[in-house]
């Protein structure tokens, strides 16, 4: 018969769990349930929700298109300075987002290193635009994609790719029919993590893209503003974000646990 778990562990574990549960309970307790439909269908909230969905999905797609090749290079090509590149890629995970936003501003702003010539040549101005929101979200979220996929590629038994080659498959066929499907669960986990991080992004966005309703004001920014003026709306938006995030995590939970 398995022994009873030590009491100390139960107590500490429950305290840890409480740290997650209590804020959620606080949120639910303060929710004005009867006014919820009205609060969530207001202009500000609708704009922010639409913008959040568009920008978080766009940055997830960009992270997929750019992050998977980056992960592949990091996992498969032994180039000089690989360790440094990996550190740079991981940096946004530990960097305060506001610092990331400031760095983006210095690089891509009107007088930035890249932003200035970009503006001169194309007239494009990234800060305080919806593209700015997408770039900020991609900056903080793409590391999740790169790290998850790189790990999966490293753990993949490469003999399967050799087996595919011996069966007449060229490089692209091997990638398309063997490599990517075999890392599928990790790819899904990477997508979920990346999207969740982009959906919740705040600091880099407000620094780099500002807080303009309908253009750069995503849900987290709307919460921040509403906390000052309209607490009930803030609670309603928060609850909405919890619900959406939770729904995505639950939908992906099987693949999630297998891949991580």
């Amino acid at each position: 018969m398995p022994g009873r778990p030590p009491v100390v562990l139960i107590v500490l574990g429950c305290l840890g769990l409480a740290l997650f549960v209590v804020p959620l309970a606080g949120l639910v307790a303060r929710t004005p349930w009867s006014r919820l439909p009205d609060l969530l269908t207001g202009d500000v909230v609708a704009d922010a929700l639409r913008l959040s969905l568009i920008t978080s999905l766009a940055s997830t797609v960009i992270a997929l298109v750019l992050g998977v090749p980056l992960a592949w290079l990091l996992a498969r090509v032994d180039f000089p300075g690989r360790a440094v590149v990996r550190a740079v890629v991981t940096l946004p995970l530990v960097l305060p987002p506001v610092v990331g936003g400031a760095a983006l501003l210095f690089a891509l702003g009107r007088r930035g290193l890249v932003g200035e010539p970009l503006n001169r040549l194309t007239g494009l101005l990234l800060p305080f635009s919806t593209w700015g929101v997408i770039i900020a979200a991609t900056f903080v979220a793409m590391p999740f994609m790169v790290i998850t996929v790189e790990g999966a590629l490293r753990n993949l038994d490469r003999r399967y790719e050799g087996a595919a080659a011996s069966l007449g498959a060229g490089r692209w066929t091997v990638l398309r029919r063997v490599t990517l499907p075999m890392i599928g669960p990790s790819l899904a986990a990477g997508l979920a993590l990346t999207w969740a991080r982009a959906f919740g992004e705040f600091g880099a966005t407000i620094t780099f893209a500002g807080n303009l309703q309908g253009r750069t004001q995503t849900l987290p920014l709307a919460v921040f503003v509403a906390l000052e003026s309209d607490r009930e709306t803030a609670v309603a938006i928060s609850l909405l974000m919890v619900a959406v995030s939770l729904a995505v995590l639950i939908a992906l939970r099987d693949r999630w646990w297998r891949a991580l």
Partner: protein
Amino acid sequence: MIDGPGLRAHFELRRSEAFRLDIDVTIPPGTTGALLGPNGAGKSTAVAAIAGLVPIDQGRIELAGAVLDDPGTGVFVPSEARRIGVVFQDYLLFPHLDVIENVAFGLRSRGVGRDEARARSGEWIRRLGLDGMERHKPGDLSGGQAQRVALARALVTEPDLLLLDEPLAALDVTTRSRLRRTLREHLDGFAGPRLLITHDPTEAFLLADEIHVIEDGVVTQSGTADDVRLRPRTRYAADLAGANLLVGTASGGAATVGAHVFHIAHGDVAGPVLITIHPTAISVHRAPPEGSPRNAWVTTIERIEDLGERVRLRTGAPVALTVEITKQSTEALHLTPGESVWIAVKATEIGVESNDPTPA
């Protein structure tokens, strides 16, 4: 399809400063050659080179009259363009594809249309007795089924060479001996050259026409199973041969090997059998032994090898066997080559397993 001169692989490959692979193997069509060696001898590297997964440094690999790799002339046919069917160690069936998709993979990769690829794959699946398994994923297959799927996947593309890398290593002992028999049939059904890579002497002795013993990257002996077993050229080959492995016929508690009859403890086994006798299970005597051994006969000592504390003897007619006894016994018995002695083995010490080629 196979009119060429089979496989001819004569090459060198430096895997690192310390390790060099030097192979010279020829396998005519319709025969099986085995590369037999311990782990780390370079067998996997040889597979990779022949399959085109790594280029060779020197020499040449030819298959069915065409050059696949020759650094001297700059020819290198990439893996996907070589007509080699490989059954990999652990089979490496694609876990995300079902059985028919696994089998059809080679045809699809070579541009065969979906319907035709499915039809041809289905035919091989039936031929290997896997009917009804088409939609199963590799994770749901037994070891024997997985092996057959791997064979079907390798054979469906009608390759010029069938390459088997430790095809039985992934199986438990019982399944292994059963599948060894069916594997023999499948090998015989393939008209081209067959290359078997193994560390298991039993597998090599039973499945191959010619055995190439590989040690530290070098082929140290090539010959038939009997050549290697009875005239081992190296210490490793001698150790391999240490296990006495005989092919015979059993009926009613007796097994006949050539002209010799063994009394065996397996009264219920009949038909073709594989007989194994451990070298230490055999005793040597100056006079007819007394007591329980039911198998005792007179033979000649052909050779005596000193192994340190033990001594290894080779006996001659009626059955060539390897015997290991302690040094003290050898000295007490004053054994010298050429002498006649009695040897004995208990019926219970004789391993007998069915070698009937029909699947159990």
